[in-house]
């Protein structure tokens, strides 16, 4: 019960909003930097995905649990505060003019709800592979010269599960059928996250939803980042203006980085050979 006791205090609730928000923003920045490796290429992106999934799997789950808890606290607290705030102003003005409150600050709950819906969809697509399993279940094969190769014969391994594909690869390796032109036998395989992203974003609906989701995120963060500083008490006339500007710059950068992926992919600038 001590965990929800903080909800009784509006200021403590705001602290929880700010702290969980900062955790989520740090994750978003990390996710954004990770995504940028897609521009380096398949090798880099897939080894990054492999590193996260296989090398630091346990740590990844600790991070995931932390993020999920942060998200739960962020959402629950915001909903509770929204109802409290609606109750505090039961009668609205017939005419209302805002002097300083921006559209971004006044729509936090709505952008928040839409971002939540987007994140759910995003996880179902790229983390669990529930939506478009064909895009998700791709395997990247490696030969003794450690370069990613295409499976000879049919490129489509997508309908099979990862286990079945692995078995295939081993049997076929014995049968000497999976070889590159340089006669390097296949020695390993890993999840083709690169192919998954490229194929995913080639669907216009996925790309459009992603871009919309990221612009909403930008709206949300534009108010949120500087707001967290204010809530936590870091407002000093010397640097608060810079924090407000920095909040806009950072949120814009995050949006541009994220939407650069679907835009370059859909125009064929990245991942053309996949």
């Amino acid at each position: 019960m001590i965990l929800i006791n903080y909800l009784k205090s509006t200021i403590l609730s705001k602290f929880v909003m700010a702290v969980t928000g900062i955790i989520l923003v740090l994750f978003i920045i990390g996710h954004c930097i990770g995504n940028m490796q897609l521009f380096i290429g398949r090798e880099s992106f897939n080894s990054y995905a492999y590193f996260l999934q296989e090398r630091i799997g346990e740590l990844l789950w600790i991070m995931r649990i932390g993020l999920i808890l942060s998200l739960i606290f962020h959402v629950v607290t915001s909903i509770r505060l929204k109802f409290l705030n609606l109750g505090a102003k039961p009668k609205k003005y017939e005419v209302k003019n805002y002097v300083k409150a921006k559209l971004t600050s006044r729509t936090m709950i709505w952008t928040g709800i839409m971002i939540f819906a987007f994140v759910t969809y995003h996880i179902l697509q790229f983390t669990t592979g529930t939506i478009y399993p064909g895009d998700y279940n791709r395997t990247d094969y490696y030969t003794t010269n450690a370069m990613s190769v295409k499976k000879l014969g049919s490129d489509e391994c997508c309908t099979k599960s990862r286990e079945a594909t692995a078995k295939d690869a081993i049997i076929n390796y014995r049968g000497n059928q999976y070889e590159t032109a340089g006669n390097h036998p296949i020695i390993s395989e890993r999840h083709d996250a690169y192919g998954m992203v490229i194929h995913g974003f080639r669907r216009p609906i996925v790309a459009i939803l992603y871009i919309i989701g990221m612009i909403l995120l930008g709206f949300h963060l534009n108010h949120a980042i500087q707001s967290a500083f204010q809530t936590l008490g870091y407002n000093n006339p010397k640097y608060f203006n810079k924090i407000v500007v920095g909040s806009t710059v950072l949120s814009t950068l995050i949006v541009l980085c994220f939407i650069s992926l679907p835009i370059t992919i859909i125009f064929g600038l990245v991942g053309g050979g996949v």
Partner: protein
Amino acid sequence: MKLTLYIWRQKNAADKGHMEKYQLNDVMEDMSFLEMLDVLNEDLILKGKEPVAFDHDCREGICGACSLTINGVPHGPEKATTTCQLHMRKFKDGDSIYIEPFRAKAFPVIKDLVVDRSAFDRIMQAGGFIGVSTGNAPDAHSVPVSKKNADLAMDAAACIGCGACVAACPNAAAMLFVAAKVSQFALLPQGQPERKKRVLSMVSQMQKEGFGACTNFYECEAVCPKQVSVRFIAKMNRDYLCSRVTEAVEV
């Protein structure tokens, strides 16, 4: 100048209330906003109608009694000005002006444009006393106060408790008011002995009164006739967290 006024009329706290239209034909631009309402009321009284009830006292912009949300902005369009110091020269001939009471659950309407702001008084009472000796005024230099802190404390103490911050806030939060009242003592040596208890008590009372939570719209700062800065809210948040962690007293 000619004006069309839309004014909130409400007989009493139980009445539902409605907007009513009035036409004023001879408004002088040198009148204050309240004088314009006085003219309207004289006209209404002559016609045997109920005059519009509104709060006012000093009419010098220092008491915090006047309120009114004018065209959706508490204290009207002019920056850092109370309604009583707003002059009709800020409006144009033929303008329509919407006049509503300050809206908040914690500020129930008593009649027409008059709201009950005694929630603010109860927050001040919850803040309690400061532990200084009474009697003769002490020597001015007996308690050193830095110039910077004295100025900041004065900036906070400029709050006249009018409630415009609550009226402007979409959440009806009273954070700017409470932050100003907490900070004016927290910045001075005389306020230190009860500093932690004070912030906890006043915030606790603020919540009991049914004010909303701060969403950092900064709308309060924009309409404050005394230009109290939202920096004081950040300062109160710091004080509050520190006091919650360190103060043993249950509030």
